[in-house]
């Protein structure tokens, strides 16, 4: 099916989220929509899916103008969407999830589950998905859950499939499989819109690339364009994709973790007997697919996990059972994985967020009073130094973009005297321009002689920053390898396979 968007304009008040966007997707074509967070990709797709009404412009399917009042209409017209966050009910089986919303019933309102099962089996065989219709979604790996989403869309005869940032939750191998699936779908005549900000994937799978910036189409690119070309189109200026970093000047071992285990609130062993050390002036990157214990590891390091065994020593001082306050006071900087939930108070101003973890004494507090003059000056300094794009230090943190929010967190943590920096997913949901900035600051911190632990699920980030890479799988360390280890080796390690001999550092 041919999809055409003509002059789509969507305004929110004075803000133009989509400004006369034209997009043409031919049948059997993978069309990548590339743009930074906030460029207007999601708004455009929500217009296509009937969640928003466009202020101007029209959606055409096979040259016929469509009017979608809601997602139901869009689905009926043959548009399917695979959301970044799966819209599946975990306690339902695959077949039940697939039939959800358009259940076929037999006499007396009984669900026709066999029909749904057959449908799942049929689609799954056609594309080689290997999905058991009776498996509980909860029990399936993330990659398979995503296939269930695809099956869901296909079972409604979707002829245009929209993938919204589909690879964010996948391992490199799962990503490769998804690419394969997308090619297969394309060959069967489905049109695919692939929304992403990851350049490598776009070049690998897309037939055509449309780049969007600030709500406008800034141009089309061919998949043969270089990363640098695509990135500069996205950001609107030249971007350094590789982080310049000198050889590390290694000091003595600062952070020493021995036999660390963490038991989570439901009693599961999420970090299992982990031992490693980080030297001064070194970045140790922890790689791994989301949910393999990295989050809990970083939380244990800053005292946020209550049930911890083993020992954590920083510069010879045991921090294993200390309070968060004590650990922060001993110079540990922490950039939490989820800045909205753990890093910032959304309803606080930027200035207030900048003093969030130093509310108990000088220089921000004297005699129980907040030193407002000092705080304002400090905040203005930091906003400038860290290039936080905002109207002022009294703007609320949740009015900032992801990148600027992260810069606030970074500014807060780096403005203390650090003896260790723990950064979990420091650039998740952050625009390319800010990624560059954040990476630079992390490397600078290392060069000041601070040991740095970076957790990331993005291999690009891991390889860009790491002096050494530690791969985690199911709570254990698969191996610790040098920073220049090739991606495919890392990919295998992330799936739990031991590295080849001689790779250990």
């Amino acid at each position: 099916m041919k999809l055409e968007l003509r002059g789509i304009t969507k305004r929110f008040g004075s803000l133009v989220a989509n400004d006369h966007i034209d997009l043409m997707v031919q049948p059997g074509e993978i069309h990548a929509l590339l743009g930074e967070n906030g460029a207007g990709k999601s708004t455009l797709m929500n217009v296509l899916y009937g969640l928003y009404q466009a202020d101007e412009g029209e959606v055409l399917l096979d040259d016929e103008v469509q009017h979608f009042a809601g997602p139901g209409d869009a689905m009926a017209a043959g548009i399917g969407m695979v959301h970044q966050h799966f819209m599946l009910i975990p306690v339902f089986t695959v077949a039940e999830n697939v039939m959800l919303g358009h259940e076929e019933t037999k006499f007396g309102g009984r669900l026709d589950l066999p029909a749904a099962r057959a449908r799942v089996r049929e689609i799954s065989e056609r594309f080689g998905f290997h999905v058991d219709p009776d498996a509980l979604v909860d029990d399936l790996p993330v990659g398979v859950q995503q296939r269930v989403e695809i099956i869901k869309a296909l079972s409604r005869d979707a002829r245009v499939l929209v993938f919204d940032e589909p690879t964010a939750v996948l391992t490199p191998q799962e990503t490769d499989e998804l690419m394969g699936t997308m090619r297969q779908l394309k060959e069967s005549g489905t049109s695919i819109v692939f929304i992403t900000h990851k350049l490598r994937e776009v070049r690998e799978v897309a037939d055509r690339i449309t780049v969007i910036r600030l709500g406008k189409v800034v141009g089309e690119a061919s998949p043969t364009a270089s990363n640098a070309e695509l990135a500069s189109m996205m950001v609107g200026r030249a971007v350094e994709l590789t982080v310049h970093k000198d050889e590390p000047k290694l000091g003595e071992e600062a952070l020493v973790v021995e036999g660390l285990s963490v038991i989570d609130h439901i009693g599961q062993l999420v970090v299992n007997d982990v031992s490693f050390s980080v030297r001064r002036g070194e970045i140790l990157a922890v790689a791994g697919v989301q949910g393999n214990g990295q989050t809990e590891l970083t939380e244990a390091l800053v005292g946020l996990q209550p049930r911890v065994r083993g020992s954590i020593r920083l510069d010879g001082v045991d921090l294993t059972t200390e309070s968060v306050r004590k650990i922060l006071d001993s110079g540990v900087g922490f950039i939490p994985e989820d800045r909205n939930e753990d890093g910032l108070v959304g309803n606080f101003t930027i200035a207030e967020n900048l003093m969030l973890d130093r509310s108990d004494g000088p220089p921000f507090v004297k005699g129980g009073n907040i030193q407002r003059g000092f705080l304002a000056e400090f905040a203005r300094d930091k906003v400038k130094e860290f290039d936080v794009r905002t109207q002022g230090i009294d703007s609320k943190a949740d009015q900032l973009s992801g990148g600027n929010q992260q810069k606030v967190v970074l500014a807060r943590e780096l403005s203390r005297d650090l003896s260790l920096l723990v950064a979990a997913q420091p650039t998740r949901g952050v625009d390319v321009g800010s990624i560059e900035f954040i990476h630079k600051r992390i490397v600078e911190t290392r060069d000041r002689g601070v040991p740095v632990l970076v957790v990331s699920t993005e291999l690009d980030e891991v390889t860009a920053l790491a002096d050494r890479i530690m791969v985690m799988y199911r709570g254990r360390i698969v191996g610790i390898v040098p920073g220049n280890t090739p991606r495919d080796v890392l990919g295998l390690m992330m799936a739990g396979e031991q590295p080849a001999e001689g790779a250990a550092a």
Partner: protein
Amino acid sequence: MSDPQAPRGDAPGATEHDADVVLEEPQAAAAVSVATADQAAPAGAPAEVEPPSRWHTMFQQIVTGNAIISVLAVFLALVVGAIMIAFTDERVQAASVYFFARPGDTFVAIWDSVSGAYSALFQGSIYNFRRDTFAAGIRPLTETLTFATPLIAGGLGVGLAFRVGMFNIGGRGQMLIAASIAGWIAFGFDLPWGIHMLVALIGGLIGGALWAGIAGFLKARTGAHEVIVTIMLNYVAFYLVSWMLRTPGLLQAPGSSNPKTPPMKETAIFPALLGPQYNLHFGFILVIIATVVVWWILNRSSLGFRFRAVGENPNAARVAGINVKSMYVYAMLIAGALLGLAGVSQVLGTVTTGFTAGIDAGIGFDAITVALLGRSTPWGIFVAGVLFGAFKAGGFSMQAAEGVPIEIVLVVQSLIVLFIAAPPLVRTIFRLPDPSRRRRAVPNVTKEVKAK
């Protein structure tokens, strides 16, 4: 404020009228969640991370809403109150029998009843024009402030707990305990003037603080929900005080069989502020001081900074090294002391002739309304407390002068809460834009556009 309705108005086929917005609410909400998913939420949030609680968000919105919503809620409640006054008025009922013959009579009767009632409310609460002298005419205002005194103190206690993310329903129990301790000190001891009052006051504050502190402590230690604990402590306090009031040698007046205490000693009673012809007492000065102190705590002190951080986002507060549990305890102690002030001002200021177990007079619950109406800000609560004081003072004269049932005032008060708890309803009625919506729908682009 640029609103999201404007583009809809321009959109083809969406030009009919603004009510469209209401119909589109659910859709828009769905769209918002999809749009934010891109930026805000972590990719594939693991199961271990606590999901952001919708209840928490809603709670925060209700207790710290927009000032304009508060004003409009009061206005709406008065309008609905007017309708009810008209309906319950006998002259209106009589005239409506022949409505189709002479509709004018009905409208005149409605106007008479509503304007009569509300002007009686005004004259009973602000200034009575039927008195000759200014000193006599202004008496209703001083009555309003007298009624407002415990409401403001209680509202501050509830509002402060709100700001820390806690719902303190235990105002009644905290007031009763505080009143009993202050009263016991006030009638049972002989101390010099001034010192006696001070000791009774401090005793009451400590009593209220500790009673609320139980709830804070249990929440911090065991995770017991403060709503349930404070409600149950209301009963414990009520029956404890009732028992003490019936037991000679404890609170009961000697030689009496009534569950009532002896009168307070002169040395402990709050002095009258404007002379003996007015009821306004020193307690009003104390609540002004309390308002300033709470304002300082919340807006200027490091303790208040941590309070607010915990209230807005306990996870981030914990990660920032703030001891969330002790904040819960401190907040409840302070909240209890403020409700204690409400209780003390009742026994040492308003009802000095001895008190019963009904001394709280429902103020512990009205305080919740006051805190909501004042959006949990100290001065907002002050204004809301004065307004509710005016309702109380004026309600009596409304009943006396116009025969309007005093329950109407309670209904109006309840409606205010209802409208505040449902800001979308008020917004829809007055066609206000939703301040949070546009921002959430497209969180990033605004800033980036402006930055470049």
